[in-house]
């Protein structure tokens, strides 16, 4: 199953449009994307599969992105330290410390800067 030539990225984002967009853009970085539409699905998928990176929207239904990150960090999984990049619709409303305290490695604000996204993906997967 595992193929070292590509990176496995879990994208947690409730909009399928943004999911498709991220899929297309991350193709440039040779990423294989798995999508989850809410925080609970992220946790379910995280338990069963290995990933190189999680890109996590904050504003997710059921379990939000910050909470999902806290649960992952507190878990006993061998992947508990996986890099997590947060995406927020309004980073300005949340202090940076909220993202970092929850355990995220980095975060980006919408509108997404696609160059920065690629840069971050490179940084955390190489």
């Amino acid at each position, binding site marked *: 199953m595992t193929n070292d030539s590509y990176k496995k990225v879990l994208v947690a984002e*409730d*909009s*399928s*449009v*943004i999911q*498709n*967009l991220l899929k*297309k*853009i991350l193709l*440039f970085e040779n990423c294989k994307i798995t999508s989850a539409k809410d925080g609970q699905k992220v946790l379910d998928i995280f338990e069963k599969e290995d990933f190189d990176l999680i890109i996590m929207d904050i*504003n997710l*239904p059921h379990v939000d992105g910050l909470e999902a990150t806290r649960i992952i960090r507190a878990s006993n999984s061998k992947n508990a330290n996986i890099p997590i990049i947060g995406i927020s*619709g*309004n980073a*300005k*409303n949340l202090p940076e410390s909220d993202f970092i305290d929850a355990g995220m490695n980095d975060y980006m604000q*919408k*509108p*997404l*800067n*696609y*160059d920065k996204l690629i840069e971050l993906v490179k940084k955390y997967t190489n």
Partner: protein
Amino acid sequence: MPALKKRVLIVDDNAVNRKYLKTVLKDYDLTEAENGIEALEQFNTTAADLILMDIQMPVMDGMECMKVLRDKNVSIPILAITAFSGNEDRDKFINEGFSDFLAKPLPPNTIRTVVGNWLSPDKQTLQVYTNKKPDYSEFDLDIIEDLKKYLTENEYKKLVVDFIDETKIFLNNIDLLTNKDDFSSIIRILHTIKGNAASLGFYRLSKLSAVLEAKLKNEQFQNFSDNFEAFKSNAYASFEAFKTQLNRNDD
């Protein structure tokens, strides 16, 4: 607590009201004035980040004082405090140039929430406070150029068409949620539309979502159906504008 306290100017001719507001807002750096003229003098000496303005005052009333400030291009939030409470009054105050409207009686938490929201950094980038109506440009061309670095023309078009379809579904969902008064879900969906629209270069739609989201977060639920209908027609206008632009490019 922020390192630097925000300054609030309290303008009210009634000493008891001023004292009440000062007690409620004690965590801010406060200045005060007894009427419109004093407020202008006070503001000239010590600028404020936000003004709470009573309407009925001797010498110069709140409406006149606000207009003088707006004419001088003072763009900070100016909130009217009045005993009026009808929706027509609200629209009148907002149209004249007030940023918001607080109707008496005012519980301490309402004052703190509204003032806090208007002073949050997010809010300041979202709102245009001048007495001119906000006039956002339809698309953010920088974002669209950026996207086209990664997407072919056809991929880009397909993405926007999907975005429009998805947003229409979101708008229908909001209609259903409005009937159930489920405002927290509506806020979440508006937040999604705001972020998606911004990421695809639909600048105006993103800004309008932000304004509506901010209103709901301020618990301004009254008039929501009307506001949402206006928002919807704006959204559909944006979709049409996109199609028009596509057709123009195809010619």
